[in-house]
């Protein structure tokens, strides 16, 4: 019994020692509010190195540097728009996940809607034209009789 207590005591001590030796995780940031704003701004921005990642989530070196710049601008009291402008001036509209509405982006913004409208118009035209081509013609007496005869032959076989 005493031996078991001793053993568990040693185990606990060993675990504690391990915890003390492990490097303590660095806090996310000294300033929580800054970090929240940084994440809000940078998740709307594209990382230029790994283009499918946002600036908030990218592990690329440049993303680290740019997050550092954004952090400093937040501390300097810059507005979100000013920070976005800082990046757009250097890297172009490409960094924005929501590109601004202007001449070159018209097709991007309205293209899909136009394609959809075009498709719908085409479909309506096609259906109308088909309505005209395919006329509902009533069967003549002879044809009706022939149809009945064929149905009667096929009926019991099924």
């Amino acid at each position, binding site marked *: 019994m005493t031996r078991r207590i001793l053993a568990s005591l040693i185990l606990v001590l060993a675990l504690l020692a391990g915890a003390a030796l492990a490097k303590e995780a660095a806090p996310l940031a000294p300033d929580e509010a800054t970090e929240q704003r940084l994440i809000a701004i940078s998740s709307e921005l594209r990382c230029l190195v790994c283009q499918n990642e946002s600036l908030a989530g990218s592990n690329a*070196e440049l993303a680290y540097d*740019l997050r550092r710049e954004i952090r400093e601008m937040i501390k300097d009291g810059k507005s979100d728009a000013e920070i976005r402008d800082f990046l757009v*001036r*250097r890297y172009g509209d490409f960094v924005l996940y929501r590109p601004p509405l202007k001449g070159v982006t018209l097709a991007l913004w309205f293209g899909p809607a136009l394609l959809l409208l075009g498709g719908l118009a085409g479909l309506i035209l096609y259906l109308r034209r088909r309505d005209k081509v395919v006329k509902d013609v009533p069967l003549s007496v002879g044809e009706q009789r022939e149809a009945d005869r064929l149905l009667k032959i096929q009926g019991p076989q099924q």
Partner: protein
Amino acid sequence: MNRFLWPLIGFVVLVVLLAIGLRLDPHDVPSPLVGKQAPMFSLEKVGAPAQNFSPQEMRGKVWLLNVWSTWCVSCRQEHPVLVEMAKNKALTLVGLNYKEVRGDGAFDMDKIAPDAERELALKRAQAWLKTHGDPYTLSALDLDGRVGIDYGVYGVPETYVIDKAGLIRFKQTGPITPDVFSGKILPLVAELSK
């Protein structure tokens, strides 16, 4: 006839669009800085530490700013082209050494003091230029990459052609190939120098 014509036209249009799309390089992002004033900076020279270089000194000259680093693999590939370019006396090539130490994944920056970083960077850059040839009139040392950010650098090597008034006229992202050099840069520099 008409039944097959429209799907065929649709198919051809699709193939053409895909062919164009596949040829586009998503990493070739047009720089908004083209046509704008080259950002100002003042940085230490690699060849003559303690002396600073500023783009202001290049006013009235057409010059090229080439962003490089010894850890950058594409820069090594580009270097012989630059050395060849430098033989043309009409060209002024200025280097911007970008994040020489902290850009290299081999270093743990927590263990390198700021002074040590500067010294290590100078040593590495100078040694590289000595062994592989120095195509630059001078190189400026951008230790922390801040000037790189001002120039919208996102992948070294990058090269800017800057005119007499200090405006950026062309940007090459990625290594300069002999084709780009003779096809774009050389004619542009000749025209701007007139």
